[in-house]
Structure formats: structure tokens, C-alpha cells
């Protein structure tokens, strides 16, 4: 959830673009499918590494209370909706532990990643996919497909 003061102050009310939530859900799904392949013994794919890198960099910035939206860098989630959803999901998890997990999966010897790391990463991306779809299905956001 957004901090209460943000939603109470009309200036601070965020505006959601529906398609970007779907885009985030598809990103998370890509990561989950790559994790599925990896847990069955495949080499970590480029897709998995890209997904892990985006999530890691964005989580790091959020943990450091940096403004992400204005930066627009391919290493991060770039859309406002993606960043806000990531903030929501990260507020209910141990970010430091998750960052450690994602970094271990990104490391050179990721093939030795513990099953617990994969479970933890899977849990995070499922939460991200689910939250993004929740916003996507918000009936009030329907008209934002177009501009």
C-alpha cells in the first residue's frame, strides 16, 4: 500500500497506466519461467539474469530511498507503475535478505544456488506478478489504456 499521507494529499495521488502493470506481470512471469527451467537443471538463462538484475537494482534503490522514476535507466524498472508495485511488494518482505538471495543467483557460481534461494526468488516474483495483476484488474484503471 502507498503511505497514507500520499493518498490523503490529492497532489500526491499516483496515476496508474494499466498496461504498465501487465508489463510488470509479464516480466515477473518471464523470471518465474526461467526459475522453473533453472531449478530443473538448465543453465541460468539471459532472461533470468536480466530479470534478476532489474529487480536487484530497483530494490537497492528503493532500500536507499532514492527517486527511481526520474532516473529512467534500463537497469531498473522504469515505469512509475512498476516502481510503485515493487515498493508495495518490498514493504512486506525482508529486502536485505531478498537482495542477498537475488545476488547469489546472479553470481558466477549460481549453479550452486541453494534450493532455499530459488524458493525465495520464486516467492518474490510470484508476489510481484500477483500484485501487478491486482492493479491491472482494477476496474477504475480501465480508461487509462488510452491517452
Amino acid at each position: 500500500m502507498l503511505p497514507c499521507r500520499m493518498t490523503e494529499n490529492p497532489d500526491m495521488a499516483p496515476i496508474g497506466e494499466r498496461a504498465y502493470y501487465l508489463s510488470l506481470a509479464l516480466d515477473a512471469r518471464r523470471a518465474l519461467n526461467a526459475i522453473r527451467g533453472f531449478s530443473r537443471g538448465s543453465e541460468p538463462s539471459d532472461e533470468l539474469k536480466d530479470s534478476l538484475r532489474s529487480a536487484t537494482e530497483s530494490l537497492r534503490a528503493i532500500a536507499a530511498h532514492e527517486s527511481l522514476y526520474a532516473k529512467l535507466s534500463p537497469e531498473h524498472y522504469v515505469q512509475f507503475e512498476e516502481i510503485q508495485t515493487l515498493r508495495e511488494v518490498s514493504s512486506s518482505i525482508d529486502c536485505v535478505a531478498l537482495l542477498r538471495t537475488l545476488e547469489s543467483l546472479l553470481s558466477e557460481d549460481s549453479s550452486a544456488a541453494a534450493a532455499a534461494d530459488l524458493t525465495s526468488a520464486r516467492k518474490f516474483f510470484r508476489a510481484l506478478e500477483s500484485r501487478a495483476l491486482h492493479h491491472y484488474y482494477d476496474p477504475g484503471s480501465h480508461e487509462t489504456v488510452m491517452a
Partner: protein
Amino acid sequence: MPALREDLRHDLAALYAFIDSITSEIGSKRSFAAYGPAADSFFEFVSGLADRCKDYISGWSVADPEEFEDRRGELSTLRAAWQELHVLVKPTLDADTLQAPLAVVDGLVRRFQEVPACAGTTFAIFHTSDFNYAEVRTTSLRPIIEKFANIIPSPPSFPPNLGLIGMPYSQGRTAFANCLVAHEMGHYLYTRLPLQKELKSRIDSAVQAFPNSEEKKSEYRDVIVQKLTIWAEELFCDLFAVRLAGPCYTYAYIEAFDLCVILDWDGKLSDDRLLGRLEFYDKYPSHIYRLQQQAIFLRESPWWDHISNARQGKSPSRSASLLAQVIPITPELHVKSNPRHGRLISVLDPVLSHVRETLGKVFNGVDDEFASFSQLNIHIHNYLAAGIVPSTINMRLGVGKDDTYIAPASPVVLLNSGMDFYLNHMPDLITSIPGEDLSSFERRLHWLRRLEEWIAKALEDQSLEGEAGSVDSGALGN
């Protein structure tokens, strides 16, 4: 796992049926309606993607609860992706060649293709039920489709350079209102420019200078930067449309949003009605602010002399007079009228100068068409006053029999000259026809429709001439 397997099969069958219902609709409507190549390529893409997706989910199996959990989530995401496409298919099917204002939009697309960054772009038209023109963010749709590719094996590619533009279903027969499509074309271009990144950076720096430290916190700053960036995009698209189409865009904008309402009996700004219309919306600056920016932009262009009738020594039309009167509205009044957004508005000024600078680069080398308009406007008016379609304008060079040449009138010239005639000369046209009644709205509507048809026909004739000169079938291929 039999129960889980059956549950998944049930849900997969539901998704399969949903995808099938979309493609069936496409097949059914395309069997009797005709579409331009842009719309056809969109339908081909959707049908191809549906086939790949159905093949993909047909091969799913569930070995354990973990896999069920995984596939169930994937199914949900695929369904959402199909819902996204579902929104676009029906309104695009509704806008077949008999329903869409193809001549006007085709003319504007041809103009759009003259912009160096936009050559080769095509637009499929769809209908909206709102009285609103809309551009589907194909720039967000395209990455979504590419993300499909990471899930569904061998999906078709989204057609390159394809834009999707929505227009109100009721406006198919109009010409002048559809000049508003130029704004939506601006959205298409905007996301292909580095402008958004530049604007965010400038806005972020300005927000950091705000005295209120609360607003500098990352979450708040993101929200403020997003809001200002969205406003700046709308303003970019307005100014893009003005530069692309000329003042006919602004006149169509005034009429669509009934902005002459702020003029009183004497044609002067009514303070009461003005003050009630200065408040910004969450996603848009106020219409008056947007109109003011368009007026300022036009004042810096060669069109302004004609708008203000400075050279002709005539009084400007009511819409032109409105343009001149909104220019002096002070920034302080905008800020004061926006208790919610006041300090954000103050950031827009420096942002707008960057927007204007960018537009200068985008249109570098693109003729604003004013010289041609100045030369042909009076002749086009003479044609229209005589009820003649101004497809080809015969110009006289001298008194000799053969001292004539045919001057081509571009879409920009035709639309602006037609709009100029509509704003200034409709009463002359109607009263010149024996038996016509200027006070009859029905007769005014009749002659307005005729005028729009003459302009649309002239645009269509041009498009056909273009086809004859090349194998290309026009911007929309209709």
C-alpha cells in the same frame, strides 16, 4: 494429481475459449467488411498470436503442486494479456473503411510521414464510445507483445511502425473535428523520442528545489515528477499537432471543448467563466492553459498574421479573437486558481521551453505550409463559395489563354483553408444561395456537411493521385 490436473484443464479450456472468441470475431467481421492494410496487419498479428498461444497452452501438464502453482499464475497473466488485446479488437473491427473518416485521417497521416522521424508510420483506426480521441500506447503495447515472446514460443512480430488511433464513433462523417487526430499522432512520436527522459530529469531537478522537504522524499517526488511529466506530454502533443496541422487543430480543439464559453456578449473574456475553467486535472493541464500554450506557439509562427487578420485589416473570427485574448493570462492567475497544483504549474514554464526546442528539431526541414496556404487560400475559398471541390486549383499567371498552371493543395492547406471558410464565410455561402435560410440550423448543418465533404473529397482525390503516381496505396492504404 488428477484433481489438480482437471482443475487446470478446466481453466485452460476457459482461456482457450476466450482467445477463440476474439479470433472468431475477427474472422466473422473481416468476411464482409473491408479494412486498410494497417488494420489488416493488426488483425493478422492478433490471429497469429492467438494460434501460437493456443498451441502453447495445449501442451501444458502438471507434475506436482509446485508446477500447478506456477502454471496457474502463468495462466492468469496470459488471460490478462489477452484482455489487453480484447479491448482493441472490437473497436478496430467497427472502424471499417465505410465508417472511418479515411480521407481526413489519411491526409494527416501523409503529413505525419513528412516528419523525418515518422516516415513509414501507418495508423489503424478504431472507434471509441467516449467523445474523445485516443492513441493506444503502442509503445507500451509493443514491449508487452515482446514480453509475450518470452513466454509463448515463436509468436508473430508486432507490425513495425504501426500506430493505433481511436476516434469517436459518431465523427466518421466530419472533417474538421478529426483534425484532433494530430494530437494523438504526437503521442505516438513522443515515446519514440528521448524527450521523456530529458523532461523527467529537468522536472526532478526543479522539484528538488521545492522548499517543502516532504515533497523531496523519493515516493512523493516520483508522484510529482510523474504528474508533471504527463502534463508535459499532453502539452508536447498539442504543440506537435499545431506544428503538424496548423491552426485548424487549435480551432477544432476550441470547438470540441466549447472554449468560446469564456467569451461574453461583447466577445471579451468573462472573468467568472474563465476563473471556473483554470483548474488543472490530474492527468491534464486545464483546457485554457493548453489553449494559451497553443496560442503562444502560433503567435511565434507565420500563421499568426493570418489568424489576427493583421494584414487583411479585417476583424478576426471569434475563435481567433479568443486565441489573442488567452495569451495575456498571467502565470500567477493559473497558480492562484489551482490550490492543489499551484506550485507544480510553476515548473511547467521551463519545461515548455525544452518542449518547444525539441519540436524545432523534430520539424527541422519540414515546411510549415503557410506560404502555400497564403497563396491558395483565397482561391480555395472561391471554389468552396461556388460549391466546387478544390481538388486542383487553377492559377493564372498572365492574361494569355495558356497562362495558367495547376497548383496542388496539400492536406494542411486544404484543412486550414476549409476551417478558415467554416469560421468566417459560412453565412456568406448560405445567403448566396437563393431560398436558403441563415437562421435554420438544419440548413446550416446541411451546408456544413457539404463543406466538409468537399474538403474530404479534395483530400481523397489527392490521395488517389498519389496512388496513381506510385504503387503505394496511401498512408492508410484505402
